[in-house]
């Protein structure tokens, strides 16, 4: 009895710790007037409308979504052939590319960001929007690479063998057997990287921060010049997008397996 109670208490405390800042931000975001008070005074959803109505916020939203959609597409285009090659061929030295794909994510982000800053400044392209797209693609290639590697590892090789003995060549096997099997992993890899790209600040800031505002950059700039409730509503918007995406992955895929729980059956 006491054990159960203590466990519940523990879970509740952790949940409160994780939720408290978000609850306050959600509360602040529905203030009727432009003030930072909690509990909110009055109720208004106007600040959510601002994200789409205010030209500056709308532009930042468009930038962020464009950046995420394009960069993650490139990241997947890099990760898919690489993961397929590593699964299909025995070439130990090719693992160096896997390490290169994982490195930007393991190192502190400031380092990768500064690397991009010095690089784009040196080649004279600093500040162009497409530089941020390429930078994000490299920075987030880790996620599709990891999910796709998991996906390939989960393929039963006898299935592929069966297709091959019946005369399917590499291309046919890839199209009819491999791709359908790894599609869920491809989609979750894209989704993971998409959400993170949407939220990313430092790489975007160091590549295009002086010329273009993405949503996180806009929030930070607004934060330095004072307070507007739109910052709160955008934050809630971000939490909602993340919860929606990860919720869908959990609903349609196996999130526990993606996160490393080997036995997706049983338990």
């Amino acid at each position, binding site marked *: 009895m006491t054990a159960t109670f203590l466990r519940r208490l523990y879970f509740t405390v952790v949940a409160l710790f994780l939720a408290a800042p978000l609850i306050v931000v959600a509360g602040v975001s529905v203030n009727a007037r432009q003030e930072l008070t909690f509990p909110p005074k009055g109720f208004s959803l106007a600040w959510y409308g601002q994200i789409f109505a205010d030209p500056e916020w709308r532009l930042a939203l468009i930038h962020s979504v464009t950046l995420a959609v394009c960069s993650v597409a490139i990241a997947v285009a890099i990760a898919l*052939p690489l993961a397929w090659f590593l699964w299909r061929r025995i070439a130990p030295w090719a693992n160096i590319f896997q390490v290169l794909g994982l490195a930007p994510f393991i190192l502190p982000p400031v380092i990768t960001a500064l690397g991009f800053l010095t690089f784009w400044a040196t080649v004279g392209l600093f500040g162009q929007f497409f530089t941020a797209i390429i930078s994000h693609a490299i920075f987030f290639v880790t996620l599709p690479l990891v999910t796709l590697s998991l996906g390939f590892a989960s393929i039963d090789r006898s299935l592929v063998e069966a297709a091959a003995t019946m005369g399917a060549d590499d291309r046919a096997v890839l199209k009819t057997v491999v791709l359908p099997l790894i599609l869920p992993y491809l989609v979750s890899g894209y989704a993971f990287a998409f959400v993170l790209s949407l939220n990313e600040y430092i790489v975007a800031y*160091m590549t295009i921060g002086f010329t273009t505002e993405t949503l996180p950059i806009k929030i930070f700039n607004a934060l330095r010049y004072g307070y507007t409730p739109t910052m709160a509503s955008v934050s809630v918007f*971000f939490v909602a997008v993340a919860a929606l995406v990860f919720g869908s992955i959990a609903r349609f895929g196996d999130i526990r397996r993606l996160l490393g729980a080997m036995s997706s059956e049983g338990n």
Partner: protein
Amino acid sequence: MRREVPKSFADYTPLLFPGLMLVVFFVVPFSTMIAVSFFKRNPAGFYTPDFVVDNYARFLTTFFAGVLGFSLMLAVLVAVCCVCIAFPFTYLLTKRSRRVQTLWLVGLLSVLSLSEVIIGFAWSTLFSQTAGITNLFVALGLMDKPVALLPTFGAVLAGMVYQALPYTILVLYPALVRLDPTLLEAARTLGASPVKAFFNVVTPALRNTIVATLIMVFVFALGSYLLPQILGRPRHWTLSVLITDQAIYQSNMPFGAAMAVFLVLISLALVGLMLLVGRKENAL
């Protein structure tokens, strides 16, 4: 179709695009950064090519030693706090039903994916005078009037633990999920209480996992670039904040690059150490 050794050049074509992208846009920028760390500062532009070690010589100042010491101390503190909270939590979580686990994982991932900007903003709101948590204490009669809890060291620590906690739980999760259940059953059969079994059986069995997780969270915390700036005072700035500040606001890209190279070396040394610890456990 078994794995095969590539026979012809055509077999390598899938590597072409990924290899090219990773080399041109990761290896080259990284090398550029190392090169720039030896260049001279040019206040009018980005830098002037040169070969000087002045940028590294600046590490020997007491100011830099202070920043480095503070960054390491803060990262250690964050790592210890996170693992102490997360280890028992993750263990208990793996004992819950799949539904509950999935729900928590979705929530943790959502918090983990949040921009550092948003986390900083959320905590600065929670600790503010007008909308902060102290208003709740006033309403409960614990305090006379609401106060601002930032900028303080405590605020920086809270924000960074918040940022790293979901990461810690997700790093520990696979190891704890795969933990052999017979280990615990044996302990329970032999008469150990669940708490005793947790401390005397589960914790020692995963000692290396705990050490590896501490290091990973430590590196993660070293990378925090905004929270010390938003929630703390300038004396709470860490190496990551200083790198951003030098490269962007002081337009001293070479010094920023030198500090970044230094941070890479620290991180790589720690990641290497972690792989070593991890290998030991697999060998057992």
